[in-house]
């Protein structure tokens, strides 16, 4: 029985995707020269932990997929136990619309508030918004990297990764030093869907990477939710196609919570002033610019600006490119 750590280290040094011990001479030679204790010391010096596939702490849901990784490298102060808790993956386009961004944030926040671990891929767009939403709710979130555990990819998300690590974990199947490569991201996606009881696709073009994640989830028989989008928007073509294939339409975070068997928490009554409430009213129907809201409310632009910030801080409104959008579930 080859150690999981040796397999993971071999994958890093050879650049190959390794699931089970290969019978090649190269691997034999690698095993002969491999120093597990030295490798482990190097890891701990970097503050990285390793959970092998055969460890008891390895998440059982991930072990159940047909090609689980040899092990997971962990960064952050969360316990490995975090990975075994009920988790939901939120994935979607990197270049998402304001709608996608607002929905990802809202779902991240509401799922995390209900105690679900939010799993995503630390990419730009939907992924980052899902993580941020979970952090806003003081929840636990897990970011899965498609490169070595020591890398921050994209580099702009270094701070986000650090905040995720404060309570949650940044996870990768790749040992330190592994460069990001295009083929590693689909492989990373199987871990995202593998850790999660359900996968939510927020916004995806046709042939988007998020659809690969959804495919993995379907293959493993996990629940897949798709957020309905406008049928005229290319950014929703992928999610709408998923819906046509039978994915569950997502209309609120409660749909997901119900499927994973968690009772949605009582929504705290939004506590905003009368001024803010008046500004919010038109946003229940459709998104609008600050200028349109100013005219609709008959107040001056300064007061409306203040009201919008109040609503944003209360998590009821999200802004994107100057357009404000209500982010409370409809109805």
């Amino acid at each position, binding site marked *: 029985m080859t150690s999981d750590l040796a397999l993971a280290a071999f994958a890093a040094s050879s650049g190959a995707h390794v699931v089970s011990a290969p019978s090649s001479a190269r691997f034999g030679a690698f095993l002969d020269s491999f120093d597990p204790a030295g490798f482990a010391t190097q890891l701990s010096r970097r503050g990285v932990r390793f959970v092998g596939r055969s460890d008891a702490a390895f998440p059982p849901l991930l072990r159940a997929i047909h090609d689980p990784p040899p092990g997971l490298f962990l960064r952050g102060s969360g316990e490995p136990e975090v990975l075994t808790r009920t988790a939901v993956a939120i994935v979607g386009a990197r270049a998402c619309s304001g709608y996608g961004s607002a929905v990802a944030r809202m779902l991240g926040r509401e799922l995390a508030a209900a105690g679900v671990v939010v799993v995503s891929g630390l990419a730009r767009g939907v992924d980052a918004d899902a993580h941020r939403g979970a952090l806003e709710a003081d929840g636990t979130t897990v970011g899965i990297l498609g490169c070595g555990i020591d890398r921050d990819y994209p580099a702009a998300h270094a701070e986000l990764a650090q905040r995720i690590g404060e309570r949650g974990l940044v996870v990768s199947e790749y040992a330190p030093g592994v460069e990001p490569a295009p083929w590693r991201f689909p492989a990373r996606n199987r871990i995202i869907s593998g850790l999660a009881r359900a996968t939510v696709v927020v916004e995806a073009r046709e042939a988007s990477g998020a659809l690969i994640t959804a495919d993995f989830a379907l293959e493993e028989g996990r629940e897949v939710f798709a957020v309905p989008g406008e049928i005229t928007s290319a950014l929703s073509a992928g999610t709408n196609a998923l819906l046509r294939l039978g994915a569950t339409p997502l209309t609120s975070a409660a749909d997901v919570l119900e499927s994973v068997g968690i009772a949605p928490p009582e929504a705290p009554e939004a506590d905003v002033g009368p001024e803010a409430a008046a500004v919010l009213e038109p946003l229940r129907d459709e998104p609008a610019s*600050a200028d349109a809201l100013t005219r609709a409310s008959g107040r001056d632009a300064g007061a409306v*600006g203040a009201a919008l910030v109040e609503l944003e801080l209360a998590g009821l409104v999200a802004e994107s*490119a*100057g357009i404000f959008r209500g982010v409370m579930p409809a109805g």
Partner: protein
Amino acid sequence: MLAQAVTYCLVGLEPRRVEVEAHLQRAVPAFAIVGLADRACQEAKERVRSGVASAQLEWPRFRITVNLAPAELRKIGSGFDLPIALSILAASRQLPEERLAEHVAFGELALDGRVRPVNGVLAVAEGACTAGIDRVLCAAESTPEAALAGIDVVPVRHLAEAVAYLRGERDPPPYVASNGHHPVGTALDLADVLGQERPRRALELAAAGGHNLLLAGPPGTGKTMLGRRLPGILPPLAPEEALEVTRIHSVAGLLSPEHPLVLAAPFRAPHHSASTAAIVGGGPGPRPGEATLAHRGVLLLDEMPEFQRPALEALRQPLEDGVINIARAGGRALFPARFQLVATMNLCPCGGRGDPRAECSCSAQRLAAFRDKLSRALLDRFDLVVTVPRPRARELEAGRGEPSAAVAPRVAVGRQRLAAGGLDRTAPADDLLARAVERVPLSARGRAKVGRVARTAAALAGAERVEPEHVAEALAYRAPAELAAA
């Protein structure tokens, strides 16, 4: 035979005394100018020779050496023509040397002997004033400008006129500007802007608080139109500010000859192809750049991401310190540059972002590269960031907005209240700010910016202290996620 005239040469904006010495020797007739004279200055030889001949004066048949002292200072420009001619004429005893010594001379000569105005007369006149010389000889057109220094100006139209005056034969006629009317204000009016309530409000805050303003949004939403209307609601310059700005504009040759004193806040909008030297100053001399020309006024950078990155980064020093320190082989100069920066930009390279009718076709990588073009440090200098979305058709039917004339008095009152001090935050306002820092990503600098804008909002509202609603409004103008690096 030896004679001397005094003039001033500009290093940056600073006048430096230059003594123009002419020496005539009995030898083969020749004419040489020494003392680090640049090309324009070397060409003075030909202009001076023709000018003297045209003025019906005698060109001395000697070996003429003109020295511009101090020799280590690089002399640039054509203002030396007049003092060179006068020193040669004094050396050849065609005019009294003692009389010449009481004057500072500055001007370019035409081949027919006329005296042409040269940029920077105000700084030269001020230099003369400080040195205790009370009369300046310069081109008649420069009279109103030189007079701003509080010095006696002798307006000379022609070299012959200058000589006749110095000989004591007759005083030149006084200079009369073409008409007494002040140029009609050309400031653009805010009334032309339809709707756009939030950007208008931000413009008012920017004017009152002197905040830098960034207008972001898809193309064609009126960002530039709004930016151009900021100078129209700024209060006029204080007297000492006006003189300071006039001095700079004099060096750059931007003054109107009839009404040289700049009373309104200057407005500069360089094209995005401008080089770093054009923006912050440089070149031989060195010369002031657009940032300095916008001193006490507004610098508009339209399509900011299209500017060269070094040019943008070079603006960080003046934005922080209000001055630009230029060191070149040709000399060093300290230019004032306390301007208000207004910039416009699209939200993405294709311009589709924020436009409900267009779909952004930018890839994540292209978007990232676009954002990386503007450094965090530069974006941090904008106290106010407003996203201007594309208005829908029915929004364009909104009536014309308030005219600038209605906004300007509020701005002036707000400025006074801000200058009066006070205006600290109430405890609930502090609470809100602390809560916001938790909730939205706000750096320490971002927090300080919100504090400043909140103070301006309170001043415009006439409040005694900064209340939560002012902090909330200020938070509305923080940099949106689209522009943040993450």
